């Protein structure tokens, strides 16, 4: 059960977007930076793009859920905790331990990964616009949870070594919860999240199996 209406929710997102403007431009540019690092074939250090994604989760957890959305829904505090936890996991795994390197392999995982990254940056807001969110309430990566979750699935699929499964748990939960809420208050853009999460998880597991097989 969702304790608010679609109109009130979109009004809240519009308020949040207005409050942060023009941070949306910076967020979109940072999204493009992540996309650039992902497409560029390299095996170098990926701390910077990991940090960008981690900061996005932190910003959505604290700014969107804890400080803003919690006025409408007590459950926003749970989402805030999950998003902050994911940010910490990303920092620990990809920045402190540096156990995360991006690489475009031209395989199905990389192709879907790049497609998800691009969709998170451009497709998600456009789909929102096409389905009636209005320009004021456009969902923007790094600002709003839906595209941030989608960006993360694309990002995880571009890891040279299989992404640690612990990094997929919260994005999977967030995708399911986000889509359920989107279904209940008629926000069709959020319905792309579960297919992306299922495909992402399946491809990560397949990559892990391949790596284990190659290691034997």
């Amino acid at each position: 059960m969702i304790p608010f209406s679609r109109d009130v929710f979109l009004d809240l997102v519009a308020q949040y977007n207005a409050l942060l403007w023009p941070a949306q431009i910076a967020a979109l540019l940072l999204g493009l930076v992540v996309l650039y690092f992902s497409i560029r074939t390299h095996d170098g250090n990926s701390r910077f793009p990991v940090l960008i994604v981690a900061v996005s989760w932190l910003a959505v957890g604290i700014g969107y859920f804890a400080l803003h959305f919690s006025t409408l829904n007590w459950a926003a505090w749970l989402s805030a905790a999950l998003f902050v936890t994911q940010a910490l996991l990303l920092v620990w795994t990809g920045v402190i331990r540096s156990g995360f390197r991006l690489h475009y392999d031209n395989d199905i995982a990389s192709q879907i990964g790049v497609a998800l990254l691009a969709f998170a940056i451009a497709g998600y807001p456009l789909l929102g616009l096409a389905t009636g969110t209005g320009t004021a309430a456009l969902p923007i990566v790094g600002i709003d949870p839906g595209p941030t979750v989608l960006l993360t699935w694309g990002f995880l699929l571009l890891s040279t070594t299989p992404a640690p499964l612990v990094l997929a748990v919260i994005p999977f939960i967030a995708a399911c919860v986000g889509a359920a809420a989107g279904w209940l208050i008629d926000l069709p853009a959020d319905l792309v999240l579960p297919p992306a999460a299922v495909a992402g998880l399946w491809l990560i597991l397949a990559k892990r199996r391949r790596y284990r097989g190659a290691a034997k």
Partner: protein
Amino acid sequence: MMRTFEPKVLGRRGFLAGLAGAGAAANMPTASLAAAAIPLITRAIPASGEAIPIIGMGTWITMNVGNDPALRADRLKVVQAFFDEGGGMIDSSPMYGSSEAVIGDSLSKIANSRGLFSATKVWTLSQWMGVRQMNNSFDLWGLKRFDLMQIHNLVDWEAHLETLLEWKKEGLVRYIGITTSHGRRHDDLADIMRKQPIDFVQLTYNMLDLEAEDRLLPLAKERGIAVIVNRPFQRGGLFDRFDSAPLPDWAGAIDCSNWAQLFLKFVVSHPAVTCAIPATSRVDHLRQNMAAGRGRLPDAEMRAQMIRYIETL
């Protein structure tokens, strides 16, 4: 204490007989009934005899608008209209996001809220958290005493009941209630109704969800417990199913000019029901709802006819 107004109860046969004699009553304009000059029908709270209007106001979703000034101003108009129409009970919960804050904000800005019967809920685990949550509700509503504090969906009810019995003695709450919704945990609720000193019960009852008629409503009557009905429109489901269908010819016999009034009159005409709490964010819908608290109510025969009619749709 509010003045009690005894409704005229008229069955279909009686109405038809009346029609034969007088002719025009079937289309008695409901607009005239909406005039606040005609008091709302009231029902007595069995525990005290105090009368409250049979139509109250719920706040689930509709009043949860956060801090947006424009949306709060819209909701203020709804609350204002509620009191203009002679409304009494406003029911909320900490579960409903910003609804309590919005109601409190509205109450602080209107002058005619003397008829308010404040009802909210405690919805958390542990006695300590419950006390904290209820104290927060006092602040949000801007009240020093609640007319009714309910234990929401039976959550940790034993712990909260202990607090509330103490608070009732101290005058912080006037009545104690317990709630459920959507047909859940009826066995537990019935057990509490039999064994605990509660004044109110809140449950789901509408023209499609009739389960409460079998056990809970007769039990409430037997035990002298007031009944608040939530989801009288089945969360809009009744409108989805029947709104496009023609209103029956005999709707005028019970002073209904739209489906909302027919749905509500069905609910509040049950002899065990004290009050229904439809929720809306629109003033025009609020006025339609409140008009259901005036005029004639269906008797048992008419109620059966109402059910038979919607079964044909």
